[in-house]
């Protein structure tokens, strides 16, 4: 996952003398792949590493922004109080705070995909120099606009098309789904799990699979501890219900109720842009039935305080900060940013450690250990999650690793699909391409992946 290109990350702050102080970016940093920096060598400047006295001489073409940069954001939904667009808007508010009077942010919400072209023109007309378009469906119109306006910078979230003045960025959640799965495996009493899914596309299939692998690790530890028998493991079922919609709260709620009513599932994960599934779990909790669920993209805990375990959350603010620092330093470049847990702007303390955009526990939920134990998550599972988090952040370990599963479940012999075929052999780790085009379910999921 881009490890090689990051291996030669610069430590420190590029253009530290140019913008660092001015931004009050104190203790902050911006790092960039060295090879990219050398592409634009013309002028010598100094780089201060995280405020430390080490100065490195580097050459960059830096034309720091004169005055305020106007930054535009285009959202597909309303900024609301949860979900995808809410999280992006929280990111916008964050960069506005971080960069203060260096930037001015504006946004347009609820822009249908067909109308993004005119929204872009409108923002340019208002003087926006950097524009973030935050929906997959905005990809082509954004590219068109980038070709038409070479002096404006575009950043498209979740797409794959780039241009000289158009970059892409995305925060990938499969690792957080995995850790959410571990907690599910540790807490489930019925050993039946349910997933309410939007569309059968690789992103969603990858997230379901990662969650299910997490469940298996949680269950494995219970088996090892003697809490579950081998027969119990054979009873495990994971059921998936498809909505064929990204947003339909009544439908998501009904799918979630069905998972509980039909299969007795007691942990529900989902890909749908509302807290409906969590609310259904809360509904069952109110009736005395222990059913658990999560937050998705932003904190939804208020919708189900009793049923809420953890979540898959994204801190877009850190990504926006990273991207905009380049613009403020006057050295923007087209990049393809895919941030996992712990990816991102690398710190001076350890170049492999990062900030990351994806996380599973929001600080406002209180102390993770206390809160999860209150809900009945065993302490060993919390320890496991904490240590796994560290390994994942340090890039020492990834769940999509054949050897790990072959060792844990010898009769699997790697990561196996629903039919039991080994898909990831020992010694192999699923690469970006495999995960981004995945169309099969891992073992334990009952329903097949819908085709066509």
């Amino acid at each position: 996952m881009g490890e090689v290109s990051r291996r030669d990350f610069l430590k420190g702050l590029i253009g530290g003398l140019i913008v660092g102080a001015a931004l009050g970016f104190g203790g902050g940093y911006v790092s960039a792949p060295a090879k990219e920096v050398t592409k634009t060598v013309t002028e010598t400047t100094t780089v201060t590493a995280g405020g430390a006295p080490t100065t490195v001489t580097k050459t960059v073409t830096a034309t720091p922004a004169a005055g305020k940069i106007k930054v535009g954001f285009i959202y597909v939904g309303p900024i609301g109080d949860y979900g995808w667009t809410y999280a992006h808007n929280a990111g916008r508010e964050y960069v506005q705070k971080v960069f203060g009077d260096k930037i001015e942010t504006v946004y347009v919400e609820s822009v249908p995909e067909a109308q993004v072209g005119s929204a872009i023109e409108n923002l340019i007309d208002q003087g926006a120099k950097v524009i973030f378009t935050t929906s997959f469906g905005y990809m082509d119109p954004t590219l068109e606009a980038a070709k038409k306006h070479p002096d404006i910078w575009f950043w498209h979230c979740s797409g794959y098309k780039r241009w000289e003045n158009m970059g892409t960025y995305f925060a990938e959640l499969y690792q957080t789904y995995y850790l959410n799965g571990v907690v599910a495996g540790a807490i489930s009493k019925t050993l039946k799990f349910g997933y309410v899914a939007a569309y059968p596309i690789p992103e969603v299939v990858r997230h379901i699979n990662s969650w299910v692998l997490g469940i298996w690790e949680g269950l494995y530890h219970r088996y090892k501890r003697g809490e579950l028998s081998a027969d119990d493991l054979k009873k495990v079922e994971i059921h998936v219900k498809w909505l064929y919609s990204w947003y339909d709260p009544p439908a998501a709620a009904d799918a979630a109720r069905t998972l509980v009513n039909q299969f007795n599932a007691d942990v529900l994960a989902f890909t749908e842009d509302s807290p409906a599934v969590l609310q259904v779990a809360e509904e069952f909790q109110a009736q005395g039935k222990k059913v658990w669920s999560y937050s998705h993209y932003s904190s939804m805990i208020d919708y189900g305080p009793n049923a809420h375990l953890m979540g898959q959350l994204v801190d877009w603010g850190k990504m926006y900060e990273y991207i905009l620092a380049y613009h403020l330093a006057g050295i923007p470049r087209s990049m393809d940013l895919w941030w996992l847990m712990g990816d991102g702007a690398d710190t001076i303390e350890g170049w492999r450690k990062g900030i990351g955009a994806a996380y599973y526990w929001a600080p406002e939920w209180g102390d993770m250990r206390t809160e999860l134990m209150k809900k009945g998550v065993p302490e060993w599972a919390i320890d496991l999650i904490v240590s796994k988090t560290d390994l994942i952040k340090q890039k020492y370990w990834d769940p999509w690793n054949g050897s790990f599963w072959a060792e844990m479940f010898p009769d699997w012999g790697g990561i196996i699909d629903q039919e039991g075929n080994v898909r990831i052999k020992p010694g192999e780790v699923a690469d970006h391409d495999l995960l981004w085009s995945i169309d099969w379910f891992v073992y334990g999921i009952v329903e097949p992946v819908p085709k066509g």
Partner: protein
Amino acid sequence: MNLDLINLFLIQALTIGTVYLIATLGEVLSERAGVVNLGLEGLMEIGATVAIIVALITENAWLGILAAFVAAAALATVHAFATVSLKLNQFASGLAIYIFGVGIGVTFRGYARDVILGPQALLKIPKIKAAFTSIKIPGLSNIPVIGSLFSLDVMAYFGLFLGILLWFIFYRTRTGLNIRSVGENPAAADAAGINVFRLRYITTIIGGGLAGVAGGYLIIKIATQIAGETVILGRGWIAIALVIFAFWDPLRAIIGAYFFGALEALFYWLQGYFGGATVVMLKAVPHISAIIILTIMSIEALRKRIGAPEALGKPYSRE
């Protein structure tokens, strides 16, 4: 298949069906008197917004439902004024109500969340939902299949009662006869001394109010949201199609609404047995039948044969 599962499935189907039922009955009432209201979707959205806000403020779901009725009825009054008094095109006015209702409903819900309610309001959701907890009638609720009919919440029973009541009014009372004659031949009814305008006003307003109740029930019972995003998502249009499916008969509306509720629930239940792709067609069924039904509706000869009110959609003016 486990009989308990059948009961659970039916409860789910009947619950979704209740949303359709109440909205459909409202539309049956107003169409019987000759007024088509295409604004159902918007009225349901307004109802949903007002219901959730009032319920959260007062911590009382019933006040929420009542307020939803009043708000949607108020908007339906506009439709009645436009179509009955001003004699404007019913379809155009209905579409305006639809666009206005969804827009205002969604916007105001977002505003209320930020300004009126605040995040604390979310904590009251379980409390208001409790009003719609299903009532299990001891003994009867344990009978397989039929038992589901005895494990519903108050609103579901209200929907059933309303269907039977409307049927009774239409076919067993003088008022019902008057309503039907206004829908069939307003001129004759007028000549017979029936106040066409007053009856059309009343049926349109009450019918619209019922759509609000359906929206309120949907948002409190099925998907409790305070976000500034629509929650109705086309269900109002399905209710309009259901009116025709029911041939403007309240008792058939009960069957039709429960059937569509079952289709919606089946979409999720069947995935467990046949996989997603096989049943994805099911999801399209309500919409496809809506298209077929509306097509039938627009063919004059067919319309007559299935018993559409003769003067449906036509403004009445004294010559």
